[in-house]
């Protein structure tokens, strides 16, 4: 699948994502935010980083860009949209995904390997994949919030869990409602998540040699 990896000023993970996408044979390329043409791609990934320095609030300034209008178009057309970390924040800030991402309860940046339970398998990204994935988070503003907790649970695709997939409060790294680590839109073609699948795609970099991130990225190789 022709996939754009969108780079805003301040994006830091674009090359890492491309490297991982190549492993699943996706036709991926980095595209700068001011030269993004949504019609040329079937999929788009908004990688992690600190777009526009995350000034004011993570993702806000990028959410205002022309490029995000293009992403919205793709989302509306049912094309695949994946936002990782800052990408998730941008999707939420632009209103393409519902909710908000607030500062971690501990009020600091946290890097940590986390287990997440895959709670929705009705999305193109999660169809038929494992139940529990191991991926690292690295963020300061990842506390997912939605007033209606029931709705949050329905949207949730990934929830922080223990290694056997139990969603328990003790493993919630940032205080998100319902341990939400990632959500999708109703249709399932737009996903945002705080953990980094691209960092869980190379066995030499993971604590146990797993490559769970590839499970999510694989859809771009189709």
């Amino acid at each position: 699948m022709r996939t754009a990896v969108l780079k805003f000023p301040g994006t830091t993970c674009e090359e890492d994502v491309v490297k991982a996408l190549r492993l699943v044979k996706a036709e991926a390329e980095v595209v700068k935010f001011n030269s993004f043409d949504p019609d040329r791609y079937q999929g788009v990934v908004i990688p992690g980083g600190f777009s526009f320095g995350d000034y004011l609030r993570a993702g806000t300034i990028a959410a205002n860009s022309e490029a995000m209008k293009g992403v919205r178009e793709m989302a509306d057309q049912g094309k695949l949209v994946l936002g990782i970390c800052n990408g998730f924040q941008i999707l939420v800030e632009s209103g393409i995904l519902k909710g908000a991402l607030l500062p971690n309860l501990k009020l600091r940046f946290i890097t940590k390997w986390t287990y997440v339970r895959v709670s929705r398998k009705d999305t193109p990204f999660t169809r038929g994949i494992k139940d529990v994935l191991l991926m690292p988070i690295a963020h300061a503003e990842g506390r997912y919030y939605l007033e209606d907790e029931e709705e949050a649970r329905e949207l949730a695709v990934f929830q922080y869990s223990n290694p056997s997939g139990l969603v328990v409060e003790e493993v919630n790294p940032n205080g998100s409602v319902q341990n939400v680590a990632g959500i999708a839109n109703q249709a399932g073609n737009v996903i945002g998540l705080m953990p980094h699948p691209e960092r869980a795609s190379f066995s030499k970099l993971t604590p146990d040699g797993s490559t769970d991130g590839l499970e999510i990225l694989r859809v771009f190789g189709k």
Partner: protein
Amino acid sequence: MMLTLSSKEMELVRSTLDREPNEAEWKVVDALWSEHCSYKSSKTFLRSLPTTGQGVIMSVEDWQDAGAVDVGDGWALVLKVESHNHPSAVDPYNGAATGVGGILRDIISKGARPIALLDMIRVGGLDAKGKWLLKNIIAGIASYGNSVGVPVVGGELSFDPTYTDNPLVDVACVGVVKASEIVPSVVRTPGLKLVLVGFTGLDGIGGASFASRKLSGMDEIGAVQIADPFAGKILIDATLEVRGKVEAMKDLGGGGLAVAVTEMANGLGARVQLERVPLRVKGMSPEEIIISETQERMLFAVKSENVQEVCRAFEDYNYPCEVIGEIVSEPRITFTYEGKVVVDLPSQLLLSPPLFVWPMNRKVRTEEVKEVSVREALSTILLHPDLGNKEWAYSQFDYEVGVSTLVKPGQADSAVIELPNGRQIAVKGDANQDLCEVDAYECGKAIVAEAFRNLASVGARGIAAVDHLQFGDPRKPEVYQDFVDSIRGISEAAKFFSVPIVGGKVSFHNEDKNGNPIKPTPLIVMAGLVEGKYLKPRVEEGWLVLLGITRNE
């Protein structure tokens, strides 16, 4: 006007010029002759360090911004260490963050892509002030490193009352570049255009001399610099995009344009039209423009035909890029403002400050060893915050970005990262203030050996190191003696292990508010290549084997 020049130095300037310099000229001389930029009290001894060796591509000899060594397949590893001690004492968050920004710019100045950062932090203790310092220092490093996407892969956290007023914030960076694509810091031919990127503001006016002075506790607002990691990220990305079109580059650090232009011209001359400098605030005086130390700026020497292309990359990010002058053959540094000459000084004068060797005197050390019970010794050691779990600190760093951190913080004595050519390097920074306080010479040797051992513990052999020498006021004979002794130690050990010292930095005037020097704190950052497979950080089971003789030390 606040100058750090001594009356003897001022006399020397007057007699060389055969006239009284104007105020702007004094400031330019002051910046270039500051300890920070000129190494006038240390150069004589730094020359004794082993700076060449197998694999060294660029070393101190070339007087470049950072050193480089061969890591195979045409790739070079670029290495540099620096501190931001005084700024961090007054504004730990911005002080530490701008330290990271500065060290990153040193690496990109060579055309290298920064791939890892290390931070070595020393504060007084865990009282209210120490906590405030530590919390903000770590947050500052995290904010900058994370924002620009360079993983902080290791470092040190150490506590000692000697740092209560004067914390040490050392940051080191490694980068990679094809050896054939290293960009020099100095020019060789006249005619090149000088291109400045980034806005110039009022920040940090007087910073180079600030670092070369003790902390007065007075209003140091002028020397406070605010970090702008977002601008730093743009600078890194755009600079690496254009590196092939640039003949020489330098970051703007201590002493601002005055120092960058003079050092880049390196004996040739330069003419700069100050009215062309893009300003952040209106109404800056020509002098202020010359010595402003605003962060996130770079100076490039570019062939006329490449200027447009270079600037386009920055304009893409809405980042200012302007031709401000050119390199000329007449060896004079000239700054003009709207046609009026502001500064006109011979390059040679600026580049040759008088060197000093200060008097030395060895401290009288008490040989007596205190008797302590095993119990007391053990509990003192085990309860010392130095041995505490550092996860609180390193979990604030994005050490996974770049998908190349193989051995991560907290897993082993050194970090291991993968290079673009598939080889692996290990890096580690080490200092030992307690030993240095007792015997600076032995300590110099010990820290090199410790760094070498730390690398060995993950299966790597040291290939290059940089040192950072942090002391009190060099005019104090005991301080200066320690300084000289530690260099002798470092030098001897580096030769013994065949690890060339490819760069470093000196920081004097680290003192508490009563004017007592900090414990001598030389620091070594060493990089090594992993031979074969890197060693697993932890094993599940097996024998514990202790090598070497245990002495009563």
